[in-house]
Structures are given as C-alpha cells and as structure tokens.
C-alpha cells in the first residue's frame, strides 16, 4: 500500500516553509525535518547578529512554522556525515588548489541519500525540499526528468545534477512552479513568520562568508602548510610581489593581487604543488573548452551529435556547446563562444533547453 507521506527538509526559510504548506494543502501527510549539519562551536564564524543555518534559532523557526502549518517536526542529526562528506571535501579541494562546490555534494549525498534513508525509516513515500526546480515523468521513455524552476532568476537546478532516477522518482519540488515573489506572497498571506526573512546566499557553514578564515581555523597546521608564494605573469615570469598562500585564490579573482598593474589583472591558475599562482589580463581568462569528470547523467547519456548548453558556475548563464566524450568518465565541453574563468572544482551542468541532462566536476 502506497501512502502519501512526505518528509520535507525545512531550513526555517521561506522557500521550504511554503513547500511544506503547499504539500499539506495538496493532501499529503507532511512531516517536517530540519537537518543539524554543523555548529559554530565546531567551525567558528561570528554569528552574533544573524540567524543562520543550524543555529538553535533556525531549529526553533522551523519548529514554529511546522506548528503553524500543523505538521510534526524533527531535528535530524547529520553532523558526522556532513563533516565526512561535505566539509572534508571542501578543505581537501582548496588544499589541492581547486574551488569546491559544497552545495552540490550536500544535495547529492546528504539530502538525496541520507535524508532519503530517514524518509524510508519514517515510511515516507517522498521527500521534498524548497528548491526552485521541477521534476517530470517522461512516460514514453519511462524516465524522470529534472527541469529548471519556473523562476529562472532563482533556478537551483544547477545544484541538483547529481540526483539519480530513484531520487527523482521520490522527490517533490512544490515551489518549482512558482516565482520567488509568488512564494513570498503565499508566506505573507499565511502569516508565516519567515515570510520576510532575508535570503541566505553564502555557504551555510561559513556564515561570515569568509572562507579564508574558515580554512585557517579548520585546517590543522595551516600556518606551517600554507606559506606566501610566487606570482607568475602571463609569460611565466616571476613577479616581484608575493601571494598570501595558494588556497586564498580562486580563478577569476581580481581582489587581493595588489594594485599597480597597467590594466586589471585576474588569477588565471592556481598551482598547489609549487604554491604559485599565475595572473593575466581579462582577455587571457577566456577559454572554449572545458574537461569535466565525475559525471552524472540524470535521464541517460547525452548524444554527441546534439546541441546542448552548459554553465560552468552557479552564477552564470548557460552557453551553447557541443559535447565530446573522451571516455565514459570524462567529457569535453566545446563552447560556441569563449567562457570566462573556467575553475577546476566547480561543477559544469549541461542542459537541453530547460531540462537538466547532467554534469560533473571541472578538471581543467
């Protein structure tokens, strides 16, 4: 017997609150769950004025919303898993001179593996979140497909490319069919206390948005491991100035290089082994090709003969491209026009119009 019980991940924010409400309204038996992923005591970050994820205030907010909607609510502890899967990877990537995408891993593993397990334990047919994305079932193909959210400005499908067919088949994204304004309006109409809450955009475990501070405080022996190093110019010539340590730089970064250049300079590459960074002019940071590994295809492998679009970071638009498989595990993305600051460690997500085909992690 299939019930219509659904476990909703509730962050205490407006999106997941409205998601929970909508599902209840649609007749589901809704259970709220807030994931306890990390703590200030463990990872630092000044949070005196702001309510932020995984603080007691957030759990209380989520609980209050659940009570207002009239659903049960639980706090579920994933701290150990989060550290092992997300934080350790975040640190390792920076220490390898790459720029990680922790939200992608958190979604893929914490939400759609661990939270799904909890949903099973609680006898839930579905899990739901407040992501701006939609899922459709393609009947002729017997496959679930992931699409961008209706609100293209808020679309979060980029973070979801790691999902599996099984995960898609059991997931509901109730606010994917709404715009942010509509979601806020629903929350306001209901008088939900989080209606006016401000957006959280930063990495949840770095509430002060200072990843350099996070690395310094959370890597043992950081001072010994990370030293100032050489800076190279476009011609591979050493500059007179030093950088502060390679993990503090990410490709495309303009700040922190010291002024006095005749034109704006950007970080072009980061080399962890030699502790050097290369810088160049804006024009030197454009590239046509991107190599992507750790691939996941949501509803089947794409066809090299077809045209796709791809985005190489969350905050940029997808650009037209072709795909060329190097092997089953590596694909080369060939863009129609150059893209700026290809950054190893970031995810490259491939679309066919509004449908997410899949993606992987940029290697170069």
């Amino acid at each position: 017997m299939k019930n219509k019980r659904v476990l909703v991940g509730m962050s205490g924010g407006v999106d997941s609150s409205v998601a929970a409400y909508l599902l209840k309204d649609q007749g589901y038996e809704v259970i709220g769950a807030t994931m306890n992923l990390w703590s200030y005591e463990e990872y630092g970050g000044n949070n005196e004025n702001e309510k932020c994820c995984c603080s007691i205030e957030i759990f209380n907010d989520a609980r209050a919303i659940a009570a207002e909607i009239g659903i049960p609510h639980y706090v579920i502890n994933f701290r150990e898993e989060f550290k092992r899967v997300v934080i350790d990877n975040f640190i390792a990537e920076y220490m390898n001179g790459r720029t990680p995408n922790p939200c992608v891993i958190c979604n893929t593993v914490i939400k759609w593996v661990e939270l799904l397990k909890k949903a099973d334990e609680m006898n839930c047919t579905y899990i739901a979140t407040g992501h701006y994305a939609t899922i459709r079932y393609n009947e002729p193909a017997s496959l679930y497909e992931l699409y961008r959210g209706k609100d293209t400005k808020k679309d979060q499908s980029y973070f979801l490319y790691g999902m599996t067919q099984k995960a898609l088949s059991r997931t509901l994204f109730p606010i994917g069919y709404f715009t942010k304004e509509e979601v806020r309006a629903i929350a306001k109409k209901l008088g939900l206390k989080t209606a006016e809450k401000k957006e959280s955009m930063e990495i949840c475990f770095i509430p002060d948005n200072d990843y350099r501070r996070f690395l310094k405080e959370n890597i043992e022996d950081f001072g010994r491991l990370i030293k100032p190093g050489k800076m190279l110019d476009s011609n591979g010539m050493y500059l007179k100035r030093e950088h502060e340590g390679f993990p503090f730089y990410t490709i495309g970064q303009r700040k922190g290089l010291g002024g006095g250049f005749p034109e704006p300079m950007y970080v072009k590459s980061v080399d962890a082994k030699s502790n050097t960074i290369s810088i160049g002019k804006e024009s030197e940071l454009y590239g046509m090709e991107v190599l992507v590994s750790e691939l996941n295809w949501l509803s089947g492998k794409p066809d090299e003969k077809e045209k796709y679009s791809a985005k190489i970071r969350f905050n940029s638009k997808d650009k037209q491209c072709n795909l060329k498989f190097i092997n089953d595990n590596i694909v080369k993305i060939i863009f129609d026009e150059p893209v700026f600051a290809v950054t190893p460690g970031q995810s490259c997500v491939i679309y066919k119009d509004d449908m997410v085909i899949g993606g992987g992690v940029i290697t170069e």
Partner: protein
Amino acid sequence: MKRIYLDNSATTRVDDRVAKTVVEYMIEKFGNPSSAHSFGQEAKYALDDSREKIAKVINAGVNEIYFTSGGTESDNWAIKGIADKYTAHNKKVHVITSSYEHSAIYAICKTYSKVFPNLFTVTFLSPDKTGLISFEQIKNEINKNTKLVSIMHVNNEIGVKNDISSIGKLCRDNNIIFHTDAVQSFTKIPIDVKAMNIDLLSASSHKIYGPKGVGMLYIRKKIEILPNQYGGHQESGMRTGTENIQGIVGFAKAAEIALNEMNDDIPRITKLRNKLYKLISKGLDNIILNSDLENGYGGILNLTFKGIEGEAVLLSLDLEGIAVSTGSACSTGQINPSRVLLSIGRTAEEAQSSIRFSVGRFNTDEEIEIAAKSVIEAVTRLRSMMN
C-alpha cells in the same frame, strides 16, 4: 489520532486532583505566605502543610524540606552548598559521584573542577555490569578530602536501583555527606532518610503527576550547607524569594496521592511494564533487555533492538502517536551513546539501538497492547529495510 504516552520518566501528565488544587491556589487562595492578613495565612498554612506532606514521604522532619524550582536546582545546590564551604576558605574538597548522574550533578562537578582546579576534585565512578554503583567502588575512592558522595537512587535510563542504604551507612561511618538524586524514585520506591542515612535528597514534582517548576532538597538537620539564594527569610533564609505556592501545594498534593496509592499504583505499573516486555519479546527476535525486571524500578523498560537505530524507532512510533525516548537524543538531534548502556555491556552501536519505555499511572492495558503491536511493526519494517 489517539496518542499514547510512554515517556513518564521524562515527565508526567498532571493528576486531575492535583490540577484542581493548583488552580485553587492561583485564583482563590493566592496570598503571599509572608502577609499577615487572612490571604497570607491561608497560603502560609498551605505551605506548612505541604512541607509536612513531603517530609512524610521520606520520613524526614518538617524543617528538613526546602522547596526549590525542581530537580536541577536541588542537585546543583547539594553540590555547590557543600563544596563552597571549603573552596571559600581555600580548603580542598573531594566529591565522589557516578558517570551516569543527571547532568545537573555531572555538569556542576565538571564546572567546579575547572573553576577550582586545585581545590575541587571529583571522581566519576562507572557503573558495574549490572548498572549499579557498588559500595566497594566508593570505599576505594575515599580519601581524607572526601566530603561528599552523590549517587542517584534509580537510574533514569534503565531503571536500576542503587543500594543507597549501604552507601549511606558507609558515608555516615566515614563522616562524609551523602546526597542522592531521588527524582526517579520519590513516591515510587519507599525511602526512609533516617534508616538509610541520607543527608541530602533531591526530588521533583513533575515526575510524580505534579506541576513542573517545583521540587525540593531534603537537608538533614545536622548538615551545614550554604544557602542557595539570598534575599528574604523564606525557606529559613536558605532559598529565599516568594514561594511558588501553587506549585508547592500541587507538588505536595501529588506526593500525598502517590504515597497513599503507592501500593496499588506501582504494582499496576510494573504489571503493565512486564506485559509490554512480554508482548514485544514474543513478537521480535534479537532484542536485549537492559532493565532489571526483578530489582529495578517497575515503570522503566529499556530495550535494544539490534540492527536499527533507536532514533528511527522513536520517530516511527511518534508518527503513530506513541511517545517513547531513546534516552540519548535531545531535541536538537544530538546523539551520544548512553554511558549506562555502555557500562552494562552494550556496544556503542547497540546503545544507539535502544529505546526507553516508561509506564505511568494513566497508561492502560489497551494502550500497552497497541504500543507493543506498533513497536513490533516498526522494528520489523525498519529491519527489513536494512537487508
């Protein structure tokens, strides 16, 4: 959904008779016991009468009962009130307690050993394989600075009962003050502070079908202890501030009822607990009984359901309206394996697979049957997912 409450060791539903008294003292006899007029007199009489009722439960003198805000305050006071006598004069004080005390004892001892690293030392005894703290263990740890021993009477997680009578005798013989946290046993297991040589005893109202926010510390007359709160004259100047009269009369009423009905209540609760165990163990394999059905408190049943997480059982049951506890998870989802379960031989994994059922006055046969059925179903379903 009809809900079934099997978490009576966490708190209890207030008895209707108690609730009636509490309301009476909020809206009719609401006077301040310190006032000279008739309103005050009513309240003062109620206060004295309450003290007498509470004293009777443990065979204490009326003036040996001090009302507090609950178990935590009483526990804290017992430690601080003794320790401060020594630390204030730069003298050493050693305390012997157990590793499974309520956090109100555990935390204050930890804090004091940090604040007074050279003066305050504490020994945390681990329970033996039966979950008890033995007389010998304590004896071996006594040194010339040992001033206080604090050992709980009934353990809140598995319900085992420490032999506080022997521990009391040992302490009295060695001129050491003995405190016991009797929050789980007060009015449930006979206590005689004189016969058992108890110097300090903590109890709480909301575990005995009384209101929350009130409890007491029994302080034997001969014991010197520093006040817990300074101000007026209330509670003989030891715990000042206008008395929580409606709470105190509610607590006393609850204690009076419990004492009068102990001989009916406890056997009935024990029978229900045993029935719950019988039904669950008939329906499920691979469970471990962590409670002592013979010698422990009759209301607690702690079981390990091998192969699955206790938290998953708790959540599944809650969704069916059945309230139980894992004894280790708090409301923010923190999980640490229970020290007492580890000490009686459970592995960390088994400890995480454990559930505490605590039966109370208002549970019925029918509820136990429904709960057992739901437990069997939930555990069977969760186990089938693991394969």
